[in-house]
């Protein structure tokens, strides 16, 4: 029986064949390559906040514009650990507003997915749906969404509905366009292979087109989260008396710069967490795509 030469065996076998693996123990360079980035990041950020603190304490810039790092952290701690007493008209607590914004963002994103994913798939799968919808999709996708905020305030007032509508409009197009592109770029040879092995039309969609498109949809959702976060903050800055956007506006109005910087920091953390989550989701759902890119 013919066997293949050794060069044909790749990484998988190298990892699974015990005779080819030797235990090297931990060397300094391996410890560093694993934990080094964390150490650098922690030192880096600590240095950043220390420099900020020193710079603010030197009094070079009016604390109204640049509060000290310590007073920002104080405002952050206070804002996250307190909630508004029952019956309060407006809250000064970051926790309350963070919850409010995240809730609207999640509802908006959920609606955007429910509309955007099927619409994108349909546009990719049916040329008539594509022909009919594409001019509107491109028009609305290219329009800066902020230009629509006054219109929706006019329609819906300073309400939660208005804010969620803005999130949906911000997030739905990247999701839709990515799903559409995924269907359109499905590899022809995969479709041919499925046909040869007996795929019906619906099999082609469920067993080839959809799995192929899934990572596209996830990167659409990733972009949608970024856009949706912008949408929710803009909608709250424009109107309403709730949410992190409102808190930024209010802290500016009341010259409470420590609170404003604390909210900005919260926004950075929220945004990074959400992006990291979708990256993890992508690596989990479509490891093959991640590996292709490496």
């Amino acid at each position: 029986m013919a066997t293949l030469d050794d060069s044909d065996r790749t990484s998988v076998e190298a990892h699974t064949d015990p005779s080819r693996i030797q235990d090297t123990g931990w060397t300094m360079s391996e410890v560093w390559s694993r934990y080094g980035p964390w150490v650098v990041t922690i030192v880096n950020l600590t240095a950043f906040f220390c420099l900020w603190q020193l710079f603010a304490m030197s009094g070079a810039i009016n604390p109204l514009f640049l509060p000290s790092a310590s007073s920002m952290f104080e405002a952050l701690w206070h804002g996250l650990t307190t909630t508004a007493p029952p019956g309060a008209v407006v809250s000064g607590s970051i926790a309350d507003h963070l919850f409010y914004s995240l809730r609207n963002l999640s509802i908006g994103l959920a609606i955007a997915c429910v509309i955007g994913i099927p619409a994108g798939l349909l546009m990719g799968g049916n040329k008539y749906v594509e022909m009919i919808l594409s001019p509107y999709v491109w028009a609305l996708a290219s329009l800066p969404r902020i230009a629509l905020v006054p219109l929706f305030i006019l329609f819906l007032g300073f309400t939660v509905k208005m804010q969620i509508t803005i999130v949906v409009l911000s997030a739905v197009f990247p999701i839709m366009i990515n799903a559409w592109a995924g269907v359109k770029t499905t590899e022809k040879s995969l479709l041919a292979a499925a046909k040869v092995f007996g795929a019906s039309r619906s099999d082609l969609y469920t067993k080839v087109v959809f799995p192929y498109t899934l990572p596209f949809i996830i990167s659409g959702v990733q972009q949608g989260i970024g856009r949706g976060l912008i949408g929710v903050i803009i909608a709250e800055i424009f109107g309403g008396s709730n949410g992190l956007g409102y808190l930024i506006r209010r802290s500016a109005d009341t010259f409470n710069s420590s609170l404003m910087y604390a909210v900005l920091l919260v926004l950075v953390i929220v945004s990074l967490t959400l992006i990291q989550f979708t990256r993890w989701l992508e690596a989990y759902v479509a490891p093959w795509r991640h590996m292709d890119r490496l």
Partner: protein
Amino acid sequence: MKVAEAKALSESSPAADGATPVIVSKGLTVGYKLHRERKQLTALRNINLTINRGEFVVLVGPSGCGKTTFINAIAGLVEPWEGTIEVNGRPVTGPGPDRGMVFQDYALMPWRTVESNVRMPFELQNLNLSKEEMNERVRRYIKLVDLSGFEKSYPYELSGGMKQRVGIARALVSEPDILLADEPFAAIDAMTREAMQSELERFVANTGQTVVFITHSIDEAVILGDRVVVISYRPGQIKEVVDVNLPRPRFDYDVKMLPEYGEMRDHIWRLVKDEALQTARGVQ
């Protein structure tokens, strides 16, 4: 030559009396519509070819000569414009479980493991097999292509040669009468390629399948084929059918050392040369 002895090794012989035709192409003309240019292009014209059970037929010809179109017509992916193509006595109306196919770019589903890719034909067509039978076959064919232990690996974790062995296992798992292969080893490095050729010869010797195989390599054609069909440039027509009477298994007999091998190779090269030059010059 040890032809008779070698022939006896395989289950059926194309030249033997009472050979049963499996694929019959009569006056087959196929083409494509080029919608943008409002033209239609004839890819193959008037192909008359009968392929018998257990035969290994190799198609060679310049790029764009319609070899792939012919295999697609057998697979049921394209419809004839004129003439007929029959498989097991019935005109081809679409793909079926009696035909399996191996693709040049492997065409494995990247989101499926080796095992799941090999199992895919069972999910797409009902072959009236019990679950145990399916599992057993998936295991058997993964073993046949020497990939036991890689069942849970994803295609991106495998080398080109290993990916194509998954492709071969997937094509064989439904035990089709006919194995179609469209330049299956074109993207595989030379050393692995030679090993894969010898393995393919072994697989089909075991299963007794009819194989229609496309290649650009004359060496590959002569080393694998019982017959080599030389197709001319666009629109593709059969220029000559060359019988390759070399003993099998070809790799065991080291047929490349035989003088007949060189003669056959040279003969096919002469047939293909003019066509290849024409393609290279871009003559329509």
